[in-house]
C-alpha cells in the first residue's frame, strides 16, 4: 500500500494569502489543485513537498469570462467544466477537445487547467514506485545521476505530457504568474523549456492564476492525441492546429504545435508559416505535415515504439488540418477514442 508522505496543509482563501505562503515556504511548498498529478507522484515519492497549499478555497481561481473580444480562464477550472461548456467551441475547439481527452471522466472532474499546464514531465524510468526506481539506482530526474533513456546525456529527457498546453499554444494563450512582489504575463510558447527537470519557467514563489486568450474570431482549431487506449493514457504524440481562414478559405494565420515528443510542446514554425496565403488543399496539407513532422524527435521513454511515433506525426498533423478545413473526421476520431465524442 502506498501512503502519502507527511505534509503540512495550508488552505489560503485569497491569491494574496497564497503567494505569501509560497514566498515564505520557498520550493518546499507546492500548490495542490486537483491533485491527480501531484498526489500519485507523492505516493511514489517522486515529489515530497514539505507543505501542500490547497488552491480549492480561492474563489477567483474558479472564474471564467468568455467573450468575442477575448477570454480569461481561472487556473482551477476543471477539465470537465471546460469540455462540457459549449462556450469552448469554434475558435477554442482545440482546448475543449484536449480537455475532454485527458485521462478519465473521474479525473477530469478533479483535474484543473492550471494543473495540466504545470503537469510534471513523464518518463518510463521516472513514473514508477520508490522500490522500482531504487532498484535501478534512481534516475537523473529524481535521486539519481543517470538518464536511463540517454545515458550519455547530462540533461533529463522526461516528456511533456500535457494535453491542454499544445492546444492553448496553438490558440496564442498567455498565462498570468503572480508572486508576492508582483505579477507577469507570459506567452505560453515561452513558459516551457527543453529540460525534463526544469521544464517550466514558473518560479517556485509564483502562482499560475489564469489563462488569457485574445479574440479568436475567425479562427478554427483542432487537437489530435495518440495514446494506446481510448481513455486513461497520457498522450505519446499530440498535434494542435489553429488557423484563421478568409471567406474564400485562404489561410491568413496559423499555428501548429506538436506535443509529447520532447520536454516541451514544440511550435512547428516552418509548417505554420508555409500555410499562410494558401488554401488548405491536399498539397498544402501534405507539405505542412512533412515540415511539422521533422521537428518531432521522440525518445524511447513512453508507450509505443519511438520510430513509429515519429512516423505517424505527419499523419496526425494531416488529421488536424483536414478537420480545420471542415472535413468529417469522425471515423478517424472513433478509431482513437472508441466512443463517439460530442466534440
Amino acid at each position, binding site marked *: *500500500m*502506498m*501512503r*502519502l*508522505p*507527511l*505534509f503540512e*496543509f495550508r*488552505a489560503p482563501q485569497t491569491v494574496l494569502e497564497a503567494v505569501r505562503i509560497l514566498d515564505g515556504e520557498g520550493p518546499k511548498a507546492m500548490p*495542490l489543485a*486537483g*491533485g*491527480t498529478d501531484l*498526489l*500519485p507522484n507523492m*505516493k*511514489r515519492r517522486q515529489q515530497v513537498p514539505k507543505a*501542500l497549499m*490547497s488552491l*480549492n478555497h480561492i474563489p477567483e481561481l474558479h472564474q471564467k469570462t468568455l467573450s468575442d473580444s477575448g477570454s480569461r480562464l481561472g487556473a482551477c477550472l476543471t477539465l*470537465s467544466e471546460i469540455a462540457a461548456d459549449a462556450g469552448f467551441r469554434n475558435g477554442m475547439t482545440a482546448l475543449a477537445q484536449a480537455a475532454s481527452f485527458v*485521462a*478519465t*471522466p*473521474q*479525473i477530469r*472532474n*478533479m483535474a484543473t487547467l492550471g494543473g495540466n499546464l504545470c503537469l510534471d514531465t513523464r518518463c518510463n524510468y521516472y513514473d514508477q514506485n520508490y522500490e522500482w526506481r531504487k532498484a535501478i539506482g534512481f534516475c537523473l530526474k529524481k535521486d539519481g545521476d543517470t538518464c536511463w533513456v540517454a545515458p550519455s546525456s547530462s540533461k533529463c529527457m522526461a516528456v511533456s505530457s500535457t494535453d491542454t498546453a499544445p492546444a492553448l499554444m496553438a490558440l496564442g494563450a498567455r498565462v498570468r504568474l503572480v508572486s508576492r512582489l508582483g505579477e507577469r504575463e507570459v506567452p505560453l510558447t515561452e513558459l516551457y523549456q527543453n529540460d525534463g527537470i526544469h521544464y517550466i519557467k514558473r518560479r517556485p514563489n509564483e502562482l499560475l492564476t489564469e489563462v488569457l486568450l485574445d479574440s479568436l474570431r475567425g479562427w478554427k482549431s483542432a487537437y489530435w492525441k495518440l495514446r494506446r487506449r*481510448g*481513455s*486513461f493514457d497520457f498522450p505519446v504524440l499530440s498535434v494542435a492546429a489553429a488557423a484563421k481562414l478568409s471567406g474564400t478559405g485562404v489561410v491568413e494565420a496559423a499555428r501548429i504545435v506538436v506535443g509529447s515528443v520532447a520536454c516541451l510542446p514544440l511550435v512547428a514554425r516552418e509548417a505554420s508559416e508555409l500555410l499562410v496565403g494558401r488554401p488548405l488543399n491536399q498539397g498544402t496539407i501534405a507539405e505542412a505535415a512533412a515540415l511539422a513532422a521533422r521537428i518531432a524527435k521522440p525518445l524511447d521513454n513512453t508507450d509505443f515504439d519511438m520510430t513509429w511515433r515519429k512516423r505517424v506525426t505527419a499523419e496526425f498533423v494531416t488529421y488536424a488540418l483536414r478537420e480545420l478545413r471542415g472535413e468529417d473526421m469522425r471515423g478517424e476520431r472513433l478509431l482513437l477514442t*472508441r*466512443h*463517439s*465524442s460530442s466534440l
Partner: protein
Amino acid sequence: MEAERTAQIRFTLNGEEVDVFFAPYKTLLEVLREDLGHTGTKHGCELGECGACAVLLDGKPVLSCLVLALECSGREVLTVEGLSADGRLHPLQDAFADLGAAQCGYCTPGILVTAKALLDANPHPTRDQIREALSGNLCRCTGYLQIFEAVEAAMIKIAEKKTEA
C-alpha cells in the same frame, strides 16, 4: 505509519452528517475504509489508474484515492453503501445482479456510483454516452457488455417508476 489522528472534519456521508478524526495525510478512501469502516469503496491502484475507488463528491464522480480527506469538510460524499433506500436496492444494483454485470465484483462499487451520477444528470443516455461515462472504470471480468446492458436496464426501470409515480 499510524500517525496520530490529529485532523478532524465534519461532512455528509450517504445523507448522514459524520464527524471523523484521522491522520492528516490520509486520502478520502483511507478515511472511509479505515476510520469509518465503510469498506464498500474499493482500494485499487491508488494512483488514479483504475476507477475502483470512485465515489460521488457533491454529486460528481471522483477518485477517492486522490482526494485529501482534509479537503472534504462540509461536503457531500456518496458511496455504494448509500445507494439503497428504504431497505431496497437501487435499480442499478438490481440490474447488475440480474444481468451478471458483476463477476468478481471489485470494480462494481465504483461503477455503480459513476453510473448513478450519469443517470442523475442524463436519464436517457445512449450506449456511447454510457461507454464514455464508464471509460474511467476498469473491469477485468465482464468485458463490459453486461455492465452497459445493466445500466440500460436500470435506466428503463427508473423511467417506468417515474411514469407510475
